[in-house]
C-alpha cells in the first residue's frame, strides 16, 4: 500500500517508460494466463449460479415435482436435488483447485518473478 495520498497514486498514463507491472501486463504470457483463468472461473460461476437458481426456483414454484417420492422411500426429488447441490459444490471446488494447481500456478509464479526482478 504505497499510495497514501488522496489522489490515485503512481505515474501518469503518458509515462515514457512503462512500469514492470505494465510490461508484464502487456506480455502475451500474461494475456494467456488471464484468458485461461477468467475463462475457467467465469464459466464455472455461471454454471453453479445457474444450477443453484434452477434448484431454488423448482423448490419455490414446482412443488408438484420436488415433492415426488422416489421408489417407495421417503426421499423426495427435492431432497435428491438438494443433495446434488452438495455434490456439485464439492466437485466444482475440487476441479477448480486441480485446474489452478496444474494450469495456472507455474505460469503465475514465472510472471511474478519477472515483475520482481524489475522492481
Amino acid at each position, binding site marked *: 500500500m504505497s*499510495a497514501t495520498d488522496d489522489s490515485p497514486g503512481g*505515474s501518469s498514463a503518458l509515462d515514457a517508460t512503462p512500469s514492470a507491472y505494465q510490461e*508484464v*501486463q502487456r506480455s502475451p504470457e500474461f494475456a494467456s494466463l*488471464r484468458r485461461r483463468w477468467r475463462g475457467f472461473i467465469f464459466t464455472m460461476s455461471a454454471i453453479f449460479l445457474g444450477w443453484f437458481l434452477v434448484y431454488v426456483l423448482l423448490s419455490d414454484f414446482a412443488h408438484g415435482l420436488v415433492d415426488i417420492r422416489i421408489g417407495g422411500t421417503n426421499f423426495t426429488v427435492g431432497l435428491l436435488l438438494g443433495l446434488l*447441490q452438495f455434490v456439485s459444490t464439492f466437485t466444482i*471446488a475440487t476441479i477448480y483447485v486441480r485446474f489452478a494447481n496444474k494450469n495456472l500456478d507455474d505460469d503465475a509464479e514465472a510472471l511474478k518473478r519477472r515483475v520482481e526482478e524489475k522492481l
Partner: protein
Amino acid sequence: MNTQIGSPALNIGIFGLFVVVTLLIVYRVSKASNTASDYYAAGSSFTGPQNGIAISGDYLSAASFLGIAGAIAVNGYDGFLYSIGFLVAWLTALLLVAELLRNVGRFTMGDVLSFRMRQRPIRAAAAVSTLLVSFFYLLAQMAGAGGLISLLLGVKNTPGTPFDGQSLVIAVVGILMVIYVLYGGMRGTTWVQIIKAALLVVGAAVMTVWVLGLYGFNLSGLLGSAVENTGKQLLDAGNQYGKTLTTKIDFLSLAIALVLGTAGLPHILMRFYTVPTAKEARRSVQWAIWIIGIFYLFTLVIGYGAAALLPRGTLSSANVNDAAPLLAFQIGGTLLLGIIAAIAFATILAVVAGLTITAAASFAHDIYANVIKEGSPEPGMEVKVARRTALVVGIVAIVGGILANGQNIAFLVALAFAVAASANLPTLLYSLFWKRFNTTGALFSIYGGLAICILLIIFSPVVSGGPTSIFGESVDFAIFPLQNPGIVSIPLSFLLGVIGTYIGSREPVNEAKFSEMEVRSMTGAGASGAVDH
C-alpha cells in the same frame, strides 16, 4: 421451556473448561502482537488447512447450528434450503474473490477497494460498510445468546428488568470475547475458532450417528418417522415459504442474498489475509467447503431427528433454536446436553470474537491510519487504536445484546448478508475485473447498496404491519412487501456502480495502478507474504 432440563452446573462447567483451555492457548500464542501485520493477520502465518478450519469456525454461527437444525425440525424441507444457500455461496468466494483479494490487500476489505481509487473516500466507505455489517451480525449473535441461556443455564429473564441473570451472562460472553481479541489478536482469535470448529463438527457428528443409529442407519425411516411424529408434511416443499407468491419471492430474494453475500462478509474476507499466499487462500476455501458441507449434512439429520424424536408439541416457532439442545437431552441425557450447550456457547464466543477483530481492524487501519493520519500513523499507534476499538465494540455488543435480548432480531443476519451482497460484492468485483470502474462508481455502489438495504428493511413487514413486526400490527408503514431486500438491492447496487462510474468518468483511469492491481492479483507479485518472528 417452562421446566429446566439438564444440569446448569454441568453446562457451565463444560463451557468453563473450554474457556480455560482457549484462554491458556491465547496467552501462549499472543506474545508478540504488536505489529499491525501480527495483530490483524497473525503475521500471515497460518496454513491453508488451519485457516480453512478457522473459516468454518468463523462462519458456522449459532444461527447455522441451532437455527438451521431448528428450521428443519419445524419447517422440514424449507429449512434444508437455507443450508444449501450457505454452502453454495462458498464457490463465489473460491472462484471470484479469495485469491485475488489475498494478493491485492493486506488487512481489510478497504485495502482492495481503495487500491486504485482515491484513498480517503473509499476507505471511509469500506469502513462504514464493514462496521455496519459486523454490528448487525454481532447484535444478532449476542441476542441469540440470551435465548440459549434461559434453556441451558436455568437463568430466567424477568420482563421489565434489564439487569438480571441473563444480562450478566451476556456481559460475561462479551468480556471473554474482548479478552481474546485484546490479548490474542488475530492469532488468538484464529485458535479459538479452530478449537470451536473442531468441537462443533465432532459434536454434530456424534448426534448424527446417534440419531441414525436409533433408526438402524435408515435415513428414509428417520424421514418417515419425522412426518409421523409431528403430523406435518415435513418432506414437502413450501411449509415456510410456499404460502403466497410474496413469500415465494421472499425466499428467492433470501437465496440470492445468501449465495452472493458470503463472499462480501468482511469478517470472512479478513481471514484470507492470515495465510501467506493466494495458493494457501485457495486451500483454505477448499477445506472450508468440505467442513461446512459435511456439517450441514449433519444438521439435516439432527433437524429431522428432532422432529422424529422430540415429543409432539415440544417445538414451536417460538423455540425453534432449542431443537438441537433438546434433541441432545432426549437421546443422550444431561451429559450430551451439557456438551452441546457448551459447544453452542463456544460458537457464539468464537464468532463474536471474529466480528470484533474485523470491526477493530477496519476502524484502526482504514479510518484512523489511512483517513485521519493519511497513511502515516505514528509507529505502534495503529494497533493501540485497534485494541481500543475492540474494547468499544465489546461494550457496544454487551449493551446492545442486553437491550436486544428477547427481541425478534433474527432478521439482522439476513440484513447483514443482504448488505454484504449489495454494497460489498459488486464493488469488489468491479474493482477487480472492470478497468473503467472509478471512485465515484465505488461510492455509488457501497453507499447506494447500504442505503437501499436499510430503507427497504425499515419499510418492510419486519419493522411494521405484521404480527411479528418490531412495532407490532397496529403501526403499519410497510410499503415494501418482502422481508429480504436482496432481489431488489443487489441488482440496483450493480447498476449504481455503473451509473456512478459514468457520472465520474472525468476522473482518468489510473493505468499504472490498474496494471499493478491486475498483475498483482493474478500472480502475487508485490503481495505481502508471511512475516517471520
